[in-house]
């Protein structure tokens, strides 16, 4: 049997989501109809980074009319077990977190009490009346100071404030450095940032009879959340249902399990009333997971041609005060150490990667995880090699890249690059940006009309679609890897596709329908996608780390193929043919070569559901509902090149982005328009990270960026027009040939912009090795260099 129709995959199908989202008809957690008698929560947040809680007086808050209950850490500890990430890495310091601090707070913003009230206003009135006596203690926020023997201890089970130290070395690194004509070394500093989705977090817990709980949450990981709620609340998982309504952006920070979710569920079960919690922006900035507070020391041994003979990396990442669930505080640490080799032929490699504890917000996933920083480092090294040897930065990259002809290729840490276009993406991007012309114009000097002009490249690999082996390699033994799909052909012949993902704006209702339509042979308009509900469809690993196209797409293709085979068996029986001779196209099935001997999906489905007079073939079961699972290989590696052209104003230090090109390769493209959207949004966030954003703590751990007046986000006016092109190197290791594309926009933008600014200022004796590159910093560098 075969499918014979024009593919929906590869078409820029308009997003089904746009009509209702753009009309304001999206239903986010806070838009859900609130059941009668719903209670509202507000949390008392610690202003101190490190303090002993000497007493909490809740009596005044309890006396406020409309306040139903006020609970402290001790109260919650009786209801929720301490939560902990399960990391199985040698030397990892296991640590737990009470959902409300008990006795001691470890970062500014950590919740110490919760007020339950009849309205959000009353709950917030209530938290002002909770009197907490703190005894402030010395705090440490800096990743280097944290491991000073004199530094205050953050967590009793994390000795010396080292969560984890990973080491790796191939045999001949020292020999590589001995043989080197040059050693290029640099320190790279990265700013702490957080994602700031437009919709903050929130949840609504609704008890249902007899003992069930329906838990709506703005999360990316509904199955993992359900399991964790069951585990830490000690309730039967089968009595819990987690539903994800529309989500207004996740970007990884909603792929964490947060104390508020456990508190909300626990209180709903205790009070047997609906309980709702909607985060505000202040809480979002202080308590959402953070990212990127990293330091990289990189040394490259090179020969006279700029070929890297050996690479050393010392990586230090700030894990914050607790190891957050489910990925743990080592996510950036192991990520950066494993991903930094990128598209390059690094044959000797050594790293030390350390995750430290500090009195700051926990750190977990934010779009790009580690890659924006490790590529800032390795791409910064490539540029420094070029400057040292007088070579063009593009040429240095081309000399070190793994050429397409040598793929599949397994990198030094064991990750297989099955297909890709490292060289081609760089060459195409150079052509699009008129690279040679730009370089020629720089020959007359980079300072023209008061602006230093520069160009920056980031060529990189992009981890996506990680399977179970990929998580095991990073010590994550309780993270599954697979996702699931169920394809159901209804009695009317229409198709419902369930997938174990949860969208936060990516367009899953459209792209998964495209995938199913092609794999099943259905008409695109007949396919409806259902996701984000643990009661609909089987378990999966859910939506983060650019997984959904690879894992959800793969599972749906497999399930669709099973459903199609069943339809073909039934159709063949009805048409007195054989399944092998059935051709499927656009929701119709016919006998090969005899288009008139045809049945619609509906006619076949009616037989399957015993809703006509036809019999089912002997031994065939009722219905058409097929499920399959897909666990991709270790890692599915996408790749891209970004090139940014910038002008740095010599007088005021501002950066204008004058040109921007992206050549991306995510394998087989499901929907080019949606892929472009992913790239554009990612680049916008990369612009923020490279030029504007920084979450700042005082040395004593107090928060300096508690509103969006101080935590600076990019907006439409900061984003240039860009050119985006695609190369399609379908994966040969995954079902469907898809690779992920969710994070590359951000990853590439950071290094491309930092390198472009460094290139612009390269005639001056300045070192650009930090971000964000705000006007005050750049102006100071320029003035100090006499520019």
């Amino acid at each position, binding site marked *: 049997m075969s499918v014979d129709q024009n593919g929906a995959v590869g078409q820029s199908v308009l997003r089904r989501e746009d009509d209702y989202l753009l009309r304001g008809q999206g239903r986010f957690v806070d838009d859900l109809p609130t059941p009668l008698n719903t209670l509202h929560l507000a949390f008392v947040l610690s202003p101190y980074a490190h303090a002993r809680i000497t007493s909490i007086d809740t009596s005044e808050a309890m006396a406020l009319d409309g306040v139903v209950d006020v609970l402290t850490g001790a109260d919650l500890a009786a209801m929720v077990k301490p939560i902990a990430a399960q990391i199985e890495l040698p030397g990892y310091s296991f640590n737990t977190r009470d959902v409300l601090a008990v006795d001691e707070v470890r970062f500014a913003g950590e919740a110490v009490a919760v007020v339950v009230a009849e309205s959000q206003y009353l709950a917030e009135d209530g938290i*002002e009346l909770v009197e907490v006596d703190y005894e402030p203690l010395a705090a440490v926020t800096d990743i280097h100071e944290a491991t000073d023997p004199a530094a205050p201890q953050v967590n009793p089970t994390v000795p010396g404030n080292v969560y984890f130290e990973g080491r790796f070395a191939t045999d001949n690194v020292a020999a590589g450095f001995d043989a080197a004509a040059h050693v290029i070394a640099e320190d790279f500093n990265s700013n702490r940032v957080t994602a700031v989705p437009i919709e903050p977090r929130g949840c609504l817990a609704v008890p249902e009879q007899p003992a069930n709980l329906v838990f709506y949450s703005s999360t990316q990981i509904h199955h993992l959340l359900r399991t964790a709620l069951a585990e830490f609340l000690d309730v039967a998982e089968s009595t819990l249902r987690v539903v994800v309504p529309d989500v207004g952006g996740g970007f990884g920070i909603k792929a964490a399990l947060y104390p508020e979710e456990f508190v909300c569920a626990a209180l709903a079960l205790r009070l047997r009333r609906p309980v709702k919690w909607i985060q505000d922006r202040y809480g979002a900035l202080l308590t959402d997971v953070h990212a990127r507070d990293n330091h990289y020391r990189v040394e490259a041994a090179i020969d006279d041609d700029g070929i890297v003979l050996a690479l050393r990396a010392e990586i230090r990442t700030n894990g914050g005060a607790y190891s957050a669930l489910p990925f743990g505080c080592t996510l950036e640490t192991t990520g950066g150490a494993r991903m930094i080799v990128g598209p390059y032929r690094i044959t000797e490699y050594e790293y030390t990667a350390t995750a430290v504890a500090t009195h700051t917000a926990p750190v977990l996933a934010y779009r790009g995880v580690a890659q924006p920083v490790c590529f800032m480092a390795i791409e910064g090294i490539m540029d420094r090699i070029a400057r040292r040897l007088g070579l063009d930065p593009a040429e240095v990259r081309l000399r070190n890249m793994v050429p397409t002809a040598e793929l599949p290729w397994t990198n030094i840490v064991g990750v297989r690059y099955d297909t890709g276009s490292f060289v081609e993406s760089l060459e195409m991007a150079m052509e699009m940006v008129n690279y040679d012309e730009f370089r020629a114009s720089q020959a007359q000097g980079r300072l023209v009309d008061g602006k230093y002009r520069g160009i920056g490249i980031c060529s990189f690999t992009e981890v996506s679609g990680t399977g179970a082996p990929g998580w095991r390699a990073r010590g994550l033994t309780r993270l599954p890897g697979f996702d699931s799909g169920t394809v159901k052909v209804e009695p009317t012949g229409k198709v419902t596709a369930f997938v174990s993902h949860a969208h936060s704006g990516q367009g899953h209702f459209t792209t998964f329908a495209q995938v199913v339509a092609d794999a099943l042979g259905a008409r695109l308009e007949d396919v409806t996608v259902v996701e984000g509900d643990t009661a609909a469809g089987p378990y999966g690993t859910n939506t983060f780390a650019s997984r959904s196209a690879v894992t959800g797409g793969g599972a749906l293709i497999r399930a669709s193929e099973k459903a199609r085979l069943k339809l073909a068996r039934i159709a063949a029986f009805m048409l007195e043919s054989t399944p092998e001779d059935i051709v499927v196209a656009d929701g119709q099935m016919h006998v090969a070569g005899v288009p008139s001997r045809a049945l619609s999906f509906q006619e076949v489905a009616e037989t399957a559901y015993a809703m006509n007079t036809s019999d089912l073939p002997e031994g065939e079961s009722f219905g058409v509902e097929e499920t399959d699972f897909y666990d991709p290989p270790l890692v599915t590696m996408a790749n891209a090149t970004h090139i940014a052209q910038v002008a740095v104003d010599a*007088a005021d230090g501002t950066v204008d982005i004058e040109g921007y090109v992206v050549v991306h390769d995510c394998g087989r493209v499901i929907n080019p328009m949606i892929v472009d959207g992913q790239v554009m949004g990612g680049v916008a966030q990369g612009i923020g990270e490279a030029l504007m954003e920084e979450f700042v703590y005082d040395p004593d751990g107090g928060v300096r*960026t508690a509103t969006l007046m101080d935590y*600076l986000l990019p*907006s439409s006016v*900061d984003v240039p027009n860009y050119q985006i092109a695609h190369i399609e190197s379908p994966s040969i290791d995954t079902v469907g040939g898809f690779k992920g594309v969710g994070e590359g926009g951000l990853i590439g933008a950071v290094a491309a912009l930092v390198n472009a600014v460094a290139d612009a200022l390269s005639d001056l004796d300045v070192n650009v090795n930090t971000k964000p590159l705000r*006007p005050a910093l750049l102006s100071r560098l320029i003035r100090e260099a006499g520019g």
Partner: protein
Amino acid sequence: MKPAPFSFVAPESLDEVVRTLAEHGDDAQILAGGQSLVPLMNLRLARPEVVVSINRCHELDYIRLVDDRLVIGALVRQIDAETSPLVQAECPLLAKALPHVGLPATRNRGTVCGSLAHCDPLAELPAAALALEAEMVLTSAAGERRVPAHDFFVAEMTTCIEPGEVVSAVTFARQDPSERSAVREVSNGGHVFPVGGVALRWASSDGICTMARIAAFGVGSVAQRLRDAERALVGSDVGPAAIAAAVAAARSEVDPTGDIHADADYRRHLVGVLLERGLLEEERP
């Protein structure tokens, strides 16, 4: 992010507004566009017991010429002032400052007088008011007083408005058509607060500068007239040497502080850069 309890009144006339203010004194707070007050209330940094909305006082929604002054009533939205032909013709400096204020969405609600009364050190309009020798009309149940801009802006978020008073209007000096004016600022991003800026106007006769009014914002706790820089220009040909002298004077008469957005040295440097650009009318953001 919900405000503390408050009561709300929305009088329909200025008379009623000042009577309400007289009744509640310090406990009352005027609500105009709400673009600063409402976030502060939601953060519970502002906790007025009585919010007195002037949004129904249509008598305060006017822009008119009175003798040599342009008068803008308390209910005039920033966007309406920005697009007003009268403002553009009579106070081009104000018209140039307004597009820098917030975003179009906030300017649709925010008022000119509200921004002046809020007195944010990073705000453009107080500096424009200084350069345009504005006078605030403060009305209370006891009557009306007029306060020149340089007395009105006292410190960060602090003006000389007394309990019971409302800024019912602001008047600006009409600019001579031959005057030059400019507003220049630098921000850390396109839609965030500036880290520093200048608003200026000057006039010349036979190539010699006869008048200069220069004010800076973001480089101190409150908008500031740069009188030394003005003196360096008046009587000069506004050539390179005079501009350099004005830039040097401006940098020495400001006393900026550093914060997480920019250090003090940068702000001092910047005020000179922006003054030079403003004088040369270079079209840079």
